[in-house]
């Protein structure tokens, strides 16, 4: 008996929903085995990483705080990926958003008023967008691959951050610590659940996801992005400009990453520090895929990934599992998800390998489409 793949006439919706769950479960199982093999308590590691944050109500606020930027960034990235625009430099746009908001905060430090926070938000969005202007221009004007340009700018953004917090923006009262002054109350996100660390960013994340869901499924813009992403020639035929779409989706994803940066710096951090980039921009790529590039799926995927991040911290203290292990779990999830995609497009069939009857069996790999029959 053999396993044979058979192309489905229509991609399976059921598999589309099942496979992300499957990817997480397989990651847990295989993770337990691998980490046991390399000398850790594998079962305990998986329990601490995947279950403790969920079962311990004290960790819930932590989950909300960590999931928010992931969701906001991933929603933006997913729109880009749908349009076949591969922004993988969200981390840099996130940093720039944070820096732009910090700039506004430093400039308005002696002022007060409810207008400051929205202004910082706007600056964050624009800051993120500004960082994607270069890749967008180069892609549309000179067809320069945006994967490399957005990523290169991420490295540059980190040096820019260091330059600013070690230099011109360093607080005079920080005793030599590389950090800016603490933001004032008007420059900080309010907590939305009193007595917790859950801030306004969580609310923003939910709003962004719902809005994106509406835009992608119900508007011409969403249709345009999907068309340009799947069939560029059809998009031109339908009257959608490819270049305009590239600009729009890059600006959207970069603006959202910038917004996430602003929310982080004015929320949990309260000032700009060199430790500001914590890979949210890269983790969000996994979130986007695990959420099937669907805004609502991304909310769940964002929660799963934040569980892993929070759980990774737990496992670090309880069983001494080094934090980078989290990266391995994350990438395993993405590998399994991408690998399981085959189940969406193909049906797995068992075939009997009893000797075939007189004519040789058709070679499946060479079957052409019927259109080629002429």
């Amino acid at each position, binding site marked *: 008996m053999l396993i044979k793949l058979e192309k489905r006439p229509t991609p399976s919706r059921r598999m589309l929903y099942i496979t992300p769950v499957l990817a997480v479960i397989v990651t847990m199982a295989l993770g337990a085995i691998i980490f046991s093999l390399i000398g850790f308590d594998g079962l305990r590691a998986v329990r601490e990483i995947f279950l403790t944050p969920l079962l311990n109500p004290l960790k819930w606020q932590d989950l909300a705080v960590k999931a928010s930027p992931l969701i906001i960034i991933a929603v933006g990235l997913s729109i880009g990926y749908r349009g076949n625009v591969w922004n993988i430099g969200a981390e840099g746009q996130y940093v720039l958003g944070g820096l732009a908001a910090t700039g506004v905060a430093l400039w308005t430090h002696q002022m007060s008023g409810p207008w400051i926070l929205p202004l910082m938000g706007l600056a964050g969005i624009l800051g993120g967008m500004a960082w994607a202007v270069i890749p967008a221009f180069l892609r549309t004007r000179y067809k320069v691959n945006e994967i490399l340009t957005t990523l290169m700018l991420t490295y540059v953004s980190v040096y820019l951050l260091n330059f600013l917090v070690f230099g011109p923006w360093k607080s005079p009262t920080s005793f030599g610590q590389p950090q800016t002054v603490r933001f004032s109350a008007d420059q900080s996100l309010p907590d939305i659940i009193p007595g917790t660390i859950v801030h306004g960013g969580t609310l923003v994340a939910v709003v962004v996801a719902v809005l994106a869901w509406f835009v992608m499924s119900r508007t011409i813009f969403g249709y345009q992005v999907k068309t340009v992403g799947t069939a560029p020639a059809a998009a031109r035929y339908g009257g959608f400009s490819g270049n305009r779409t590239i600009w729009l989706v890059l600006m959207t994803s970069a603006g959202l990453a910038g917004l996430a940066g602003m929310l982080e710096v004015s929320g949990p951090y309260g000032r700009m520090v060199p430790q500001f980039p914590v890979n949210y921009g890269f983790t969000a790529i996994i979130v986007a895929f695990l959420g099937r590039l669907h805004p609502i799926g991304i909310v769940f995927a964002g929660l799963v990934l934040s569980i892993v991040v929070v759980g990774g911290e737990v496992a670090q203290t309880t069983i001494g599992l080094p934090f980078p292990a989290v990266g391995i779990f994350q990438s395993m999830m993405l590998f399994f998800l991408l690998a399981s995609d085959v189940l969406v497009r193909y049906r797995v069939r068992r075939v009997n390998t009893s000797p075939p009857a007189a004519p040789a069996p058709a070679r499946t790999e060479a079957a052409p489409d019927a259109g080629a*029959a002429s």
Partner: protein
Amino acid sequence: MNEPITSDAAPPRLELQGITKQFPGVLANDRVTFAVKPGEIHALLGENGAGKSTLVKMIYGIMAPDSGAMRFDGEVMENTSPRAARRRGIGMVFQHFSLFEALSVLENIALGLDEKLSHQRLEARIREVLDQYGLTLDPHRIVSTLSVGERQRIEIVRALLLNPRLLIMDEPTSVLTPQEVEALFEVLRQLAAEGCSILYISHKLDEIKALCQTATILRGGQVVGECDPRQETKRSMAEKMIGAGLRDVDKDRNRSFGEPRLVVKGLSTRAEDEFGVAITDIGFTVRAGEFFGVAGVAGNGQNALVEALSGEVAGTSAEAIMLNGEPIGLLSPSARRRAGLCTVPEERNGHAAISDFTLSDNTVLTARDRMHLAGGGLLRPAAARDYAARVIGEFSVKALGPGAVAGALSGGNLQKFIMGREILQRPDVLVVSQPTWGVDAGAAAAIHRALVELAAAGSAVVLISQDLDELLALSDTLAVINLGRLSDPRPVSEFSIEEIGLLMGGVHGDPEATREMTEVLHAHQA
């Protein structure tokens, strides 16, 4: 001198018995049986879609038949790969060359050979073959810089180096100039005289009469006749090849036309890349109710013309395209559609339709404005579903419903859906390219009828096709596109058929033959 070297005692070089091949929705070959003698030039004759290419792919081992048996020199062939076929001495020259653009001629040939030769030895052998058959080709040129004829020569040399016992030629002349065709025939005759059998696939009767000793005629995947083409008239072969009852187009030949709908003047584009064909200074007028046909051999600027008319390629002058008296030459595709110009490009998948989208979503692509499937930036999914259902119903599209994915439809059904999507928008002008390419006879007839009804209701139709038969059946006015230039349009009745043949690049060579062929086709319409 071209008589086959054969004796009755020798088994046929190739013998097919009951070969059947089924694709989803299409029975490509239905119990095909025939034999090719040693040293014989054997024609496999049939229209597009008759199943010729599928059959030879099975002989060459690219795919396997569902049932039936193949024998080569009396031995049962169980070809599971082209390599095995080559080892038996089967060579093949493909219609669409399987060449590697960025590699040199020498490298391309080396890749096609199973034996390993040093480049020096190989080059020497290539030059030997070139000399032997009087061909010219520079082994060191990069393929992307070569003409189509030269590229075909690579395939031929590649096949000849194997000292083939059976050479399969799939539509070899469709891209060649008359001189190149004559040179090719010389090579083939010489090969046959040396004892190599040739299976020659074509739908060009004059070529087959000039070259072949036997012809097997395929229609709809079945063998419908076998003959000696030298003894037959082209009419008798054409009747078998085309069959009756396909061309049931009811069109009133004596109706009058209305106001000019589409006026094109001085329309030019630039080539997209070095391999693209641009159009130059194209001009024509189509009136309400009129069918304007554009004939021409593939790759002469047809796609550029469609895209310039649709607006996919930006224009340079507003007045180059006038729709109902309004200049639209600078408008976007969407604006042109709103103004009343709809188009259907040649390629279905990924151009006219998006395979991954549902039929309902595919209506939004081109019908969102005219059929109000969207408004104020928002989609109206219910309206799109209704419209898709209407198209499915009125054009008898075989699909599960508006929610079916376009890629799940057969080629013919998807084409009916696309045509329906545009026709039901009642455009003032409809430009269609190859509307029935790769579509079964029933669907083709339905599409033709719908186009005729659209024109009868007062629309102008531009029909771009390589199917001369389709063009002559439908067109009122006809022009030929060649190397991006359009001939002077004239009523199809005034057109001398010799001219069409010549304008199309003289591919059919003998104008007399073309005229005869066309008469046959007209006879069928009657």
